[in-house]
């Protein structure tokens, strides 16, 4: 190690694991993350994986943040380099003064290392080959061994990890013993041969509290169970697949009839996304709460059906776990790039309700609420998460449910109401909110049946090509979408410590990075009010917030500034007042990026009048 100072940091650093896909490293890495959390220290892990199943490089990046910042930080203080294939780039990525942990079984020339980092080698393969004969065991226990070594290197409590393993394999005592043994091998070897702890340390804290650790897709699946969904139809696509898998797992647990083992739900893997949304529409038309989960390519295929659901006013729910552009590759990276294709999905004059959860907690709550909203409004509702929230385990507020809450099934006319002579016009606005009443097939022998079709009908669902009927319908739908503004979750505002002429708007998975950026900017004396948008069509407060400020930064993870486009279009905002802060290289946005962009823009503004400069 040269003159560069080794990084010294307690509870605030980034560890990155470079692994080979399919080597069983994922569960070991997760075990390690959980161990840190058991010590009360918040951790934000992220998977970076290619769209391959086996043999390709994958990374697991773990931000340890005593302060509780869960956004990606960027950089790497300790690299756990377990993949020879990516060695050079992994070594290059380590911060000056950082640390490298590697398997020193095979000796490497000095030239393969760096002078300004601390190198920590343990002959993992050698120890494994000595201890285990089964090749699969050698692989799996090698992973556990490095967890043991890291436990020692970071000065962690061995007992915590040991207990975690015992909890994880409860009931399978043999596995507990074997895993703890491997853990100890790594721990002891590090203690005996390396100077433990290194400059990076995990110290007991109480930053985790009662938070839970779960990913957004699992939370969505659970939200759909609590939201009363009974039908799910889907077609596999990364990163949305596990929404349905989780829904299935939770249904088996919570929705299996205790008397006869039968299912209070139906899940169908369709032949493609057209069929999956078609099934969802059919089920919702027929009175079940139904949903699908997909990603951008599926959204593209579903376009025609979204229009049908919009105009036939069928309450469907779609979880869109957003990712990058077409084909494979970037698609396993995160983006917020389906806003436009969902907000105005389909041909004809359509506009859809979108919800933007920020974390697993909101994936659960907004996921459940989406079903109430869809039925109240009788329209498709899109829950717009992305790979970053969907597929990474995240510390999150624990889930809550109010047992007094009843599902809002919206305006469904019953046989009794029909018998009592209530006027029924399927597309008639009787309540002045643009939302008509519907009947469920089979309700009444002689009353309330109607024939659903797109737009070619009058308020009583009778075939009509009359322009007046069409206009009545379109105006009612516009009115309905106005009603939606008041029903979607309200935006969340955080004011700067001093009144500011500047604001920032953001949404979804940008949330933790934005919260941290806000704190960084405040610390620098840069004051910006921030607003997190949670729903579309925008509540009036969103446009009022823009009106209150001279300029508003719109922070997004896409290239074209899609939320900004929606704000300009829907709020009739002067585009010059909305400044793009866009991050779209496939990695999750960071606080450093956001605060850097905003600080730069505002610094420029100090030199020249803002109206000329910032808006460019």
């Amino acid at each position, binding site marked *: 190690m040269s003159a560069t100072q080794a990084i010294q940091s307690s509870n605030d650093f980034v560890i990155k694991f470079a692994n080979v896909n399919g080597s069983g490293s994922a569960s070991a890495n997760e075990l390690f993350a959980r161990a840190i959390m058991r010590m009360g220290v918040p951790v934000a892990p992220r998977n970076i994986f290619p769209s391959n199943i086996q043999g390709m490089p994958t990374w697991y990046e773990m931000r340890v943040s005593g302060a509780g910042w869960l956004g990606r930080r960027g950089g790497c203080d300790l690299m756990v380099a377990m993949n020879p294939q990516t060695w050079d780039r992994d070594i290059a990525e380590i911060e000056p003064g950082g640390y490298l942990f590697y398997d020193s079984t095979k000796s490497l020339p000095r030239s393969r290392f760096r002078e300004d980092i601390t190198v920590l080698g343990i002959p993992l393969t050698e120890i494994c080959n000595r201890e285990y004969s089964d090749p699969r065991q050698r692989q799996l226990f090698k992973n556990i061994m490095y967890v043991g070594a890291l436990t020692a290197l970071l000065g962690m409590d061995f007992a915590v990890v040991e207990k975690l393993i015992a909890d994880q394999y409860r009931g399978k005592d043999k596995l507990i013993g074997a895993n703890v043994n491997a853990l100890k091998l790594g721990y002891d070897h590090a203690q005996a041969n390396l100077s433990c702890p290194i400059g990076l340390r995990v110290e007991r804290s109480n930053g985790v509290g009662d938070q839970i650790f779960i990913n957004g897709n699992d939370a969505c699946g659970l939200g759909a169970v609590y939201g009363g969904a009974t039908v799910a*139809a889907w077609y596999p696509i990364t990163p949305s697949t596990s929404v349905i898998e989780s829904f299935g797992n939770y249904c088996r647990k919570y929705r299996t009839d205790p008397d006869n083992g039968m299912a209070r739900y139906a899940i169908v893997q369709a032949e493609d996304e057209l069929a999956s949304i078609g099934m969802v529409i059919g089920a919702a038309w027929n009175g079940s709460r139904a949903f699908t989960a997909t990603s951008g390519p599926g959204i593209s295929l579903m376009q025609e059906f979204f229009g049908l659901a919009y105009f036939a006013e069928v309450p469907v729910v779609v979880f869109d776990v957003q990712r990058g552009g077409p084909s494979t590759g970037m698609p396993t990276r995160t983006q917020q790039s389906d806003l436009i294709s969902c907000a105005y999905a389909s041909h004809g004059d359509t506009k859809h309700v979108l919800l933007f959860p920020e974390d697993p907690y909101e994936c659960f709550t907004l996921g459940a609420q989406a079903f109430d909203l869809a039925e109240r409004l009788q329209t498709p509702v899109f829950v717009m998460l992305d790979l970053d929230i969907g597929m990474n385990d995240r510390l999150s507020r624990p889930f809550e449910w109010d047992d007094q809450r009843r599902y809002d099934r919206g305006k469904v006319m019953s046989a009794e109401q029909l018998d009592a002579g209530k006027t029924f016009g399927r597309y008639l606005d009787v309540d002045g909110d643009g939302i008509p009443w519907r009947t469920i097939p089979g309700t009444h022998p002689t009353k309330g049946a109607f024939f659903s079709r797109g737009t070619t009908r009058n308020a009583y669902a009778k075939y009509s090509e009359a322009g007046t009927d069409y206009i009545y319908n379109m105006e009612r739908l516009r009115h309905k979408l106005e009603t939606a503004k008041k029903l979607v979750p309200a935006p969340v505002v955080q004011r700067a410590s001093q009144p500011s002429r500047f604001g920032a708007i953001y949404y979804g998975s940008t949330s933790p990075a934005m919260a941290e950026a806000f704190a960084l900017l405040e610390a620098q004396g840069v004051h910006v009010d921030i607003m997190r948008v949670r729903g579309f069509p925008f509540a009036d407060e969103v446009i009022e917030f823009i009106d209150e400020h001279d300029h508003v930064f719109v922070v997004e993870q896409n290239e074209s500034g899609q939320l900004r486009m929606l704000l300009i279009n829907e709020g009739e905002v002067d585009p010059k007042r909305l400044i793009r802060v866009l991050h779209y290289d496939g990695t999750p946005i960071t606080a450093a990026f956001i605060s850097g962009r905003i600080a730069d823009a505002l610094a420029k503004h100090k030199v020249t009048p803002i109206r000329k400069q910032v808006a460019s």
Partner: protein
Amino acid sequence: MTYLAKPKLLRADAPKNTLGYTRRDYEGAISTLCAGCGHDSISAAVVQACFDLDIEPHKVAKLSGIGCSSKTPDYFLGASHGFNTTHGRMPSVLTGAALANRDLIYMGVSGDGDSASIGIGQFAHAMRRGVNMTYIVENNGVYGLTKGQFSATADKGSKSKRGVVNNDTPIDLVALALQLGASYVARSFSGDKEQLIPLIKGALRHRGPAFIDVVSPCVTFNNHAGSTKSYDYVREHNDAVNRLDVILPRDQINTSYAPGELRRIVQHDGSILHLRKLDTDYDPSDRVGAMNHLQERHALGEIVTGLLYVDSSAEELHRHLNTVEKPLNQLGDAYLCPGSKALEALNAALR
């Protein structure tokens, strides 16, 4: 075009079924199709079949795609809910509807363009899945609604109205349905209501995917010489393998047949399919035999009709999914929501 309410002129002596409904109660809006269109005859057959079977109209959900054929659900069963969906995608919407409520009768109506061209994927997969439905294709060999282009069921060598010859190999939806697992497969002709009505009745009482391909001439675009879907051509080449009578459990059986002439098939609900053999060798329980027979006759230019295959022990989608008996759309909050206690336990497990 605006909607015309059909005048409710009821003859006092109109016959009623055991539910007290007249045939009129099974009708719908006035058809807007061309006079003489085969599709209207199929609608009339559906009305008759539902009347005969004492079906409560509101217990039927009728779904269709897009096309002249797909418009017809508006013209029958006016007291049933209906859904005119998108082109070629009726099977998925029907599947979803069937998932939501297993107690209704699902009738899918489609065209040859709707099911054999744009919608062939959904057609195939709905059959494979075992959706409990009656799926009728009103097959005229052309796209009627878009003015007469060939569809995928047009025979090779058949001529369009403008004299263009079709060179593409036709898709036989009956053959596909047989191969893909439909458990009730029939073909008929819109001009032969004696044959068609019982086939629809049998399908409505069948459990599992029932498919009927009904050759249904388009008088405007495909009823000329050189067409193999014209009234004349189908009458000349109709090669019926059997004649069906559907006997409900309540009915008295008072016809007698010579031994060997009749085949009785009891369906899951107790209804009996009486099949009078016209082709002595034909066995409607032999799926592979049915497929061969179709191929052989098609090569001779014949159109094989009748109940071509039936498996009365077949299962359907809900059974495969093991869903509860009560329709999913009728399960209350208490059956669906695990509640706060379960959530607390789950939170604890996630720490």
